[in-house]
């Protein structure tokens, strides 16, 4: 069970949140110019990292805002929570 500190609402049970996958994957600026390989990379390939992962969460049963989180996937420890557009503090 994770306790997540929403940057807007404070600490809440993780059942209030939805997971949004790996963060900082930038949507291609010129989608029409992408090769199939580049599309595959953008759509499907993931770091799936064992260690500190930067990921997106949505407070779907609260303020419904998106934010980012740095969490260690090997032990589920949350290292930092930061707003969209900000950089992680560690």
């Amino acid at each position, binding site marked *: 069970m994770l306790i997540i500190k929403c940057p807007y609402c404070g600490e809440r049970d993780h*059942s209030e949140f939805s*997971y949004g996958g790996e963060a900082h994957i930038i949507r291609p600026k010129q989608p029409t110019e992408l090769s199939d390989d580049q599309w595959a990379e953008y759509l499907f390939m993931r770091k799936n990292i064992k260690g500190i992962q930067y990921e997106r969460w949505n407070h779907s049963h609260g303020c419904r805002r998106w934010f980012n989180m740095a969490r260690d996937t090997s032990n589920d420890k949350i290292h930092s929570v930061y707003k969209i557009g900000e950089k992680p503090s560690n």
Partner: protein
Amino acid sequence: MKKKYSIFALIKNSLSYHENWQRAWRDAEPKKEYDAVIVGGGGHGLATAYYLAKEHNLKNIAVVEKGWIGGGNTGRNTTIIRSNYLWDASAGLYDHALKIWENLSQELNYNVMFSQRGVMNLAHNQHDVRELKRRTHANRLNGIDCEWLNVEQVKKFCPIINCSPDIRYPVMGSTLQKRAGTARHDAVAWGYARGADSMGVDIIQNCEVKGIKRKGDAIEGIETTKGFIKTQKVGVVAAGHSSVIANMAGLKLPLESKPLQALVSEPIKPVIDTVVMSNAVHAYVSQSDKGELVIGAGTDAYISYTQKGTHEIIEGTLKAILELYPIFSRLRMLRQWGGVVDICPDASPIISKTSIKGLYFNCGWGTGGFKATPGSGHLFAYTIAKDEPHSLNAAFNINRFVSGDLVDEHGAAAVAH
């Protein structure tokens, strides 16, 4: 040479109080070089080594395992075996495995306790009924046994299911695959280990892979906690940790590793002699030979390698179980655990070559890999030995994520992934 297991061996060994049984496999230390190294000593990895030695005449093979063999998802699943998949490619793959299961105990001279007790997939709404009937027909066209049961037939086949029309998600029918069933999961790993070992395969436990050494675009060997092992062929069957190994080789895979939970109840007398699965309410249950109910829960939404899931997932599963089987309401749960499953975007596995020569991946089995163990090993061994896929696993190549030719079993496979 391995001594054969038989009733006579049992009687003979009982005379010496079962203290002189031959070891089922050697505790091998790594040699300097192998023709092929399999990373991961679960059922799939051990089966791969077994078929490499048996059918492809490779004798200098090692299986390296981080912990002990069969200690990962092989020992953590709910042991369900079935092949009632919708798409042709999946039907071919999973029924290939099911056919091997049917003679596996005889072939390995090891009782894997394969029990063809049937698997039911319940329908709870009109859409389920249409989709499951469609799948019944698709299965039959692919030569896979499958039949449709109406509510009365469901009640007759498995009397403890609550078939009342007044429950929240009433049972409206079910598919039944009679050739499907369960097997003893540990025995599968041990049987393949014993078979592989008898053909000279080195099974190296407590040996974690730390790096993959490349020379240009080809494999040179692997760094392990027991030193460097030289080899030109590496087959990775590391389940939840596949991406970790891929990262060592500089590859990215389309996988996400998530915790999947299961639980067993205290042992009770036989009440359910089949496997019942329900996609819509996500509850599936069977009963082990020890009498425990074996219940599979769902995955958590987020990536985690912790081998533990959240309580709410179990709560949701048990709510559904109790509505479908009110008879279980006083039952206590005995154990609960999690495993890390590697899920592909299309919920189908990858059994494939990679862009690196001599590096092969067998991964992405997600929440349902156990059923495929013998077929997966058989086809992966073929792919490694011939450096090209067998016709049955050609569709499960890694390039499908580039070409778009996905095997989209997410909704089609009859269970929620």
